[in-house]
């Protein structure tokens, strides 16, 4: 089992040595800066025009949700980009040969990489979410209820995308794996959109398309589940949250499905790498 930790540490060290960590950190801070400036000025404008306390709070909620939406997208994309080349690249370059011939089971190499990247992606998510919350709190004193649960859904979505990318890397070339993972991500996104529209116009077929697509890739459903947590329970009309509203709430079963999906996919990745010819 020691090998899992060795590989996880190696993965994090690689991110650090290849300046991935620093670029991600720097760009994350730039993102927060832009958000902070925008939030400040919009808030300034609203304060001049609106006097009702509830409405001002609502603007904070809307902007924070928009920020979290961007963070969700960024984290998912980063999860794919950092991990998409790790197995396929090392298999293609034969760097992996000297590693897997050591007295360690092969699955531990995959597990170690997964663990290392999971740590990086979760730290990145924590940094961005923490930064957003801090900016909003410092400027307006607004704290979102249930943000922990919502962020947990975002974390699960990011890990899901990471697992798809790692699993794909055990068999596919880097480029094919990248295309597959992004397309799955896009499919879930499109399916989610279709489902929303379907729910809006009460079109069962569209809703079903959305459900099937979220079964193929549950990442987008998890984001919707997160927005449900982000919305205050007393919002009577979810459309007030605009494009970030969850019109249909994914059930808890969908969350359980996503967890099982992740675990099964990870198990398949370990098995697939253990059995393949290098």
């Amino acid at each position, binding site marked *: 089992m020691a090998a899992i930790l060795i590989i996880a540490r190696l993965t994090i060290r690689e991110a650090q040595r290849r300046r991935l960590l620093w670029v991600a950190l720097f760009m994350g801070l730039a993102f927060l800066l832009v958000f902070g400036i925008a939030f400040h000025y919009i808030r300034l404008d609203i304060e001049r025009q609106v006097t009702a306390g509830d409405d001002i709070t609502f603007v904070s909620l809307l902007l924070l949700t928009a920020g979290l939406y961007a963070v969700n997208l960024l984290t998912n994309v980063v999860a794919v980009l950092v991990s998409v080349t790790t197995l396929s690249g090392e298999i293609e370059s034969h760097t992996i040969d000297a590693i897997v011939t050591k*007295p360690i089971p092969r699955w531990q190499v995959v597990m170690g990489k997964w663990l290392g990247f999971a740590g990086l992606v979760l730290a990145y998510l924590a940094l961005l979410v923490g930064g957003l919350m801090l900016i909003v709190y410092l400027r307006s004193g607004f704290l979102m209820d249930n943000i922990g649960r919502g962020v947990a859904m975002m974390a699960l979505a990011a890990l899901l995308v990471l697992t798809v990318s790692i699993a794909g890397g055990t068999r596919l070339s880097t480029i094919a794996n990248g295309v597959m993972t992004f397309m799955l991500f896009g499919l879930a996104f499109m399916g989610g959109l279709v489902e929303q529209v379907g729910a809006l116009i009460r079109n069962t077929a569209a809703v079903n398309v959305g459900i099937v697509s979220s079964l193929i890739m549950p990442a987008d459903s998890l984001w919707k589940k997160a927005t449900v947590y982000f919305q205050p329970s007393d919002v009577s009309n979810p459309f007030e949250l605009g494009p970030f509203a969850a019109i249909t709430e994914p059930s808890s079963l969908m969350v359980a499905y996503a967890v099982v999906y992740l675990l099964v996919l990870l198990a398949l990745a370990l098995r697939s790498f253990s059995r393949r010819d290098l």
Partner: protein
Amino acid sequence: MSDLVIDTHSLRKEFGPKVAVADLTLDVRAGEVFGFLGPNGAGKTTSIKMLLSLTKPTAGRATLLGRPLGDLAARAKIGYLPEHFRFHEWLRADEFLNLHGELYGMDRAARGAAVPRLLKLVGLEDRAATKLGAFSKGMLQRIGLAQALLNDPALVFLDEPTSGLDPIGRRVVRDIITDLRQRGMAVFLNSHFLSEVEKTCDRVAFIRGGRVLQTSSLKEFEEEAMQVVVRVGQPTPELLTGLAQFGRNVALEPGDGRVRLTMSDEAQLPALAHWVVQNGHNLYELTPTHLSLEDRFLQVVGEESDE
């Protein structure tokens, strides 16, 4: 049986309809340096990959150090220098060796002793803090060799260990191999440099078309395989028949009247000279030459290798 470090029976690997290795049957004894020779595409790399469990055999069985292929306890006593020797280039040389030491399960103290010793062995002690990305091909190969020796293995696989090296580097590697043998390690050497194999190996296997054609001891065929050229004024059929009593493969060279034969015993040369002269031939030349491994290689492997 127990002193065999590699023991394979009819290992076979197919990739779809293509047979990469048809029948790999060989044994390598403890403490010997074993050369693995064959033309490109003969199945050498696939064979090594099967032995190291990088690739799963389609059929056949094999043991390494008396344990089945892929056994982790056996792998702890095996070193491997891959042919491509591509490593994590963002690691420093000492970090690289430390990483691989950790993967071998060596504790901090063992690594602390082994890493400087091996850096020195391969002549990279001044480069401990240099990143592998800044290494030349030859330096990478040497650090790869150090990596393969970290765990003090009982069996080392070296896949083309000198392909990227200049003559000095090759000499260093050759000396290391000789040293390994003296310390009782078995070495499985895959190399295109036949002169190298000739200088370092105890036994060699010739492989072609995924099959082991012949396994022989170098000492053995150095003794047995002496080519003798006899040049007389007028070679006659009686001369050829007569020479057959001294050696094998008697053949008349077209053109200049040279006769070639293979002899096993140098001590027979004076008798041969005597016989030729006694039978009324004018002897112009009598030249014994030892068959080089390259000649031998071409003899065993070369005939149909243009397929």
